[in-house]
């Protein structure tokens, strides 16, 4: 089925997924299990004073209705999102949708129906605090770089500037909306707990569960064969996972829980709205004299989630003076969480829009402006770049797109009712690296098996693993069996932050290399060695890899400025009479270290561009500040791009090799693709219409107003 070719390896799990035989958490056979549905608070603030569960308890098939009083104390491990049902023991309601009860029944539909019969009384509700009204606050325990970073004298740089541009940009609340809603199946066997879950880290889930229930780490097994999309919302551990295991414990029965699509909008995070201001000063030749970038994002009342929107502004462009400031605003809403692409996704929309504004203010071509500000070393820290091929991305993508034929004046291209615009933006993403271990085994018949406790989140990681192992061992990649998604396997960390190829890939590389050495010691060369592996009939090696000493908690280098880069060019067609923007074509070039599997790497980038188109034109989870809730908790009201929104995408990678990121020379790609398209499209809309739209997604009303500005 799979054929290795220069084009890349087809994903080994593809046929199973296409034919519907791939098993996801909710598909786990669960004989004798109770089906669980969470009941959520219908108000965003106040106190729960009474729960009326009689009707639900009496509904057909219902075996139990659990409330906070029924559940054990569950201490929270690291990266576990606050468990509000515990808080509701003293009645506090922190957000609409907060779990207040669990209904268990002999079928999912019956549980769902009974959940609708639970009634709650609330007191002391108040008008919700919303983003626009909340004051700026500093994170209590910053997970990222320091909130404020400064180099040089920005005021002096702006005073000395020939041209200054300054504007405020906003990005909307967005929901991950994977096809597969989160689902957890938990079964206790004495003090041993087995959980089938849809998570981006089985290890973190294992840790959270063992902490919550006070059982040894080894007593908890987490299995996650496949994930139907995560995009960040299955990264940390969320209340429904612990509640499922708790319900199984107190009822003495296996419990299977699936979040409804509606609950996906309140139960496992969202990308919070940001409000950012970028101020750029430049000399007459367009070289930056100062860069200031401030950002505030919505956080929950008790949470600390910060979008690192300003971070890339410290490494993107040479400037003698840089100042960034990151703030959060506590509001009455569910907890936000990282979403493809966190940090640089919202941040680069603002910075790259501002760079386009500067290009127009100085009369310098936007590509040329970026080339003139290309730094030699990290602009903030002075560290060397581990690899940085942004220049090649810009020049080659411009060439492929045909940028030289662009007429820079806005409203200079038209086709019938449509204005045509060309815009571009640079892209960058941070490099997170996590430790991993892997075991590689070869049987006497040459069969190779790679085992790693990682997750397949849809990116094609098994193909990457097979490619790496077969490259080292000199076997056919189709013959490599890859096992993953089980805490019984050698541990790996999260499949998040575009880190898997570096962490897991490097561990597989190390284990395969060790195995090859062992084979050499046995005098075995090539893979036709039946009988030469002794009585065991197989040989195996286990090895690990992790970021070097001194890296930060997220595996970010403190020696090098280590990032990925790209350039995105977009053509839009704007019907400014009707307020419509359609992306007509897109060219994007990326530099992300060595590309292991070109086939699935390309899919990552085209998928990322679709996310960027969603950011620019569609995705906006409106938050109703009166009732304190997301307005449309379904995929009709929260619109993600469909095929008709995605044009031909011309994606390529430039040669890049980062020897400092890991032994493979590879870096991460999954999130990079979702960076840059938003600004490229907004810049193209400016070119088409002459109107700068600084709030995404761009709505019909705003684009119509652009038409009026002619």
């Amino acid at each position: 089925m799979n054929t290795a070719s220069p084009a890349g390896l087809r994903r080994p799990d593809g046929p199973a997924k296409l034919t519907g035989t791939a098993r996801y958490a909710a598909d786990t056979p669960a004989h004798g299990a109770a089906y669980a549905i969470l009941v959520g608070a219908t108000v965003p603030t106040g106190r729960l004073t009474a729960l009326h569960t009689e009707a639900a308890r009496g509904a057909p098939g219902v075996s139990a209705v659990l409330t906070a009083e029924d559940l054990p104390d569950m201490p929270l491990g690291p990266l576990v999102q606050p468990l509000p049902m515990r808080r509701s023991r003293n009645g506090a309601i922190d957000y609409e949708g907060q779990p207040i009860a669990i209904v268990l029944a002999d079928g999912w539909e019956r549980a769902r129906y009974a959940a609708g019969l639970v009634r709650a009384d609330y007191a002391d509700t108040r008008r919700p605090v919303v983003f626009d009204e909340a004051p700026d606050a500093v994170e209590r325990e910053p997970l990222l770089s320091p909130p404020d970073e400064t180099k040089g004298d920005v005021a002096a740089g702006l005073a000395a500037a020939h041209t200054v541009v300054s504007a405020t940009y906003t990005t909307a609340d967005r929901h991950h909306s994977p096809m597969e809603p989160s689902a957890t199946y938990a079964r206790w066997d004495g003090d041993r707990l087995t959980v089938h879950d849809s998570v981006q880290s089985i290890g973190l889930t294992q840790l959270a569960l063992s902490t919550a229930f006070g059982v040894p780490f080894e007593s908890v097994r987490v299995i996650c064969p496949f994930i139907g999309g995560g995009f960040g919302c299955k990264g940390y551990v969320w209340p429904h996972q612990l509640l499922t295991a708790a319900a199984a414990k107190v009822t003495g029965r296996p419990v299977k829980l699936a979040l409804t699509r509606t609950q996906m909008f309140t139960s496992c995070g969202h990308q919070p709205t940001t409000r950012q201001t970028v101020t750029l000063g430049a000399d007459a030749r367009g070289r930056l004299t100062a860069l200031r970038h401030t950002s505030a994002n919505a956080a929950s009342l008790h949470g600390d989630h910060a979008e690192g929107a300003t971070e890339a502004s410290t490494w993107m462009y040479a400037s003698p003076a840089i100042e960034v400031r990151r703030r959060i605003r506590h509001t009455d809403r569910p907890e936000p969480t990282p979403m493809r692409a966190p940090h640089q996704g919202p941040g680069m929309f603002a910075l790259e829009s501002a760079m386009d504004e500067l290009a127009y203010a100085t009369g310098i071509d936007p590509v040329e402006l970026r080339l003139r500000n290309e730094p030699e070393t990290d602009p903030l820290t002075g560290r060397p770049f581990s690899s940085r091929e942004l220049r090649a991305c810009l020049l080659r993508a411009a060439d492929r797109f045909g940028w030289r034929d662009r007429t820079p004046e806005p409203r200079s291209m038209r086709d019938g009712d449509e204005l045509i615009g060309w815009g571009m933006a640079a892209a960058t993403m941070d490099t997170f690296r996590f430790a991993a271990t892997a075991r590689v085994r070869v049987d006497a018949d040459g069969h190779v098996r790679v085992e790693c406790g990682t997750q397949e989140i849809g990116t094609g990681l098994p193909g990457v693993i097979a490619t790496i192992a077969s490259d080292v061992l000199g076997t056919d990649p189709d013959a490599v069996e890859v096992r993953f998604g089980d805490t019984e396997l050698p541990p790996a960390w999260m499949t998040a932050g575009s880190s898997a190829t570096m962490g897991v890939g490097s561990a597989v590389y190390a284990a395969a290399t060790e195995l090859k050495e062992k084979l050499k010691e046995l005098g075995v060369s090539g893979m036709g060695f039946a009988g030469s592996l002794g009585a065991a009939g197989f040989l195996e090696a286990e090895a690990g890899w992790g970021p070097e000493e001194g890296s930060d908690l997220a595996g970010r280098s403190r020696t090098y400025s280590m990032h990925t880069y790209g350039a995105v060019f977009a053509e839009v067609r704007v019907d400014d009479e009707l307020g419509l923007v359609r992306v007509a074509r897109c060219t994007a070039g990326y530099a992300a270290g060595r590309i292991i599997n070109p086939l699935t790497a390309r899919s990552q980038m085209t998928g990322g561009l679709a996310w960027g188109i969603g950011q620019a034109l569609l995705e906006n989870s409106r938050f109703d500040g009166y009732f304190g809730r997301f307005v449309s908790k379904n995929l009709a009201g929260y619109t993600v791009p469909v095929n008709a929104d995605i044009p031909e995408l011309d994606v390529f990678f430039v040669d890049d090799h980062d020897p400092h990121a890991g032994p493979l020379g590879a870096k991460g790609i999954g999130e990079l693709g979702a960076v840059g398209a938003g600004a490229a499209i907004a810049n193209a809309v400016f070119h088409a219409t002459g109107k700068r739209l600084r709030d995404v997604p761009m709505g019909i009303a705003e684009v119509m107003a652009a038409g009026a500005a002619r």
Partner: protein
Amino acid sequence: MKEFTYVKAPDMAAALTALRRPGAQLVAGGTELLNWLKDGIEAPDHLVDITGLPLTAVDVGPHGRLRVGALARMSDLAAHPEVARERPVLAQSLLLAASPQLRNMATIGGNLQQRTRCPYFRADTPLPCNKRTPGAGCAALQADDTAQHAIFGWTQECAATHPSDLAVALAALDATILISGPGGERRVPADAFHLTPEEAEPRRHTVLAPDELITGVEVPARPSARLSHYLKVRQRASYEFAVVSAAVALELTAGDTIGSVRIALGGVAHRPWRLTAAEEALRGTELADTDALRAAVAISFADARPLPGNGYKVELAQRAAVRALRAAARPEAPDVHRAGANGGPR
């Protein structure tokens, strides 16, 4: 879930009898009813399946009159060669609605009975909604979240719009909805089928009584049907309800002068909103005279009442109407899937 009985009606009489039971609800394609059941909008005791009734035919009568059975699938009607050729607005309104999968299931009669997409009406938790619970109030107006709401025919009780594309096209074609009930058959003009909250309490979505059912739709033969167009404005290129839509059917005299015209708008009221004053004013107007078209259309907007969040719709709807007028006059206009306003990238 709540238990209900299910009966498949063998004939019309049985269907009407079954419908008279309290708590009875009719089901055909099920694409909308299942949403209601899941969202708690309806909780019937009895489901009456009418898919066994002989109402699937699409017939063209001797004088070109089109008669569509209520159980014809959206995809079948859209693909009917006579429809695409003789009544482009009808085929376009169907093909621009929903998704292929839904169009293969959803029926013509059911399409007309879709309920509003107001997110407060469709909310997962009980929010004040006079369409859900009479007298409860209107959450959308309370929250001042009205970007998608009506600019005509709304009241302080309800400002929802109806979502059917097909209904708008039928209004432009002067179609008639055929209804059967205990009292026999009756005919209702397509633009009088839906009820605005000005006409009836919000709980009543259409003129259809609980014990009545739609048997079909009749579309008269008119020369204007050939020069017709459906323009759908929406943020997503496909698979989204209209923000605003415009259906136009027109007759030209002496080259490019408008003889008679019917214009209906979607997304602006809780029924297809006819621009009758504009239709009158457009008689004798040169199609090439965009300013005159614009001025005539504007007459029908003198009484528009935008809400704080949807002022843009007043302008957008007029622009859509003018654009649809121009497009209707050019039947060779690009097909629906290529038009920028209607479809995706080229």
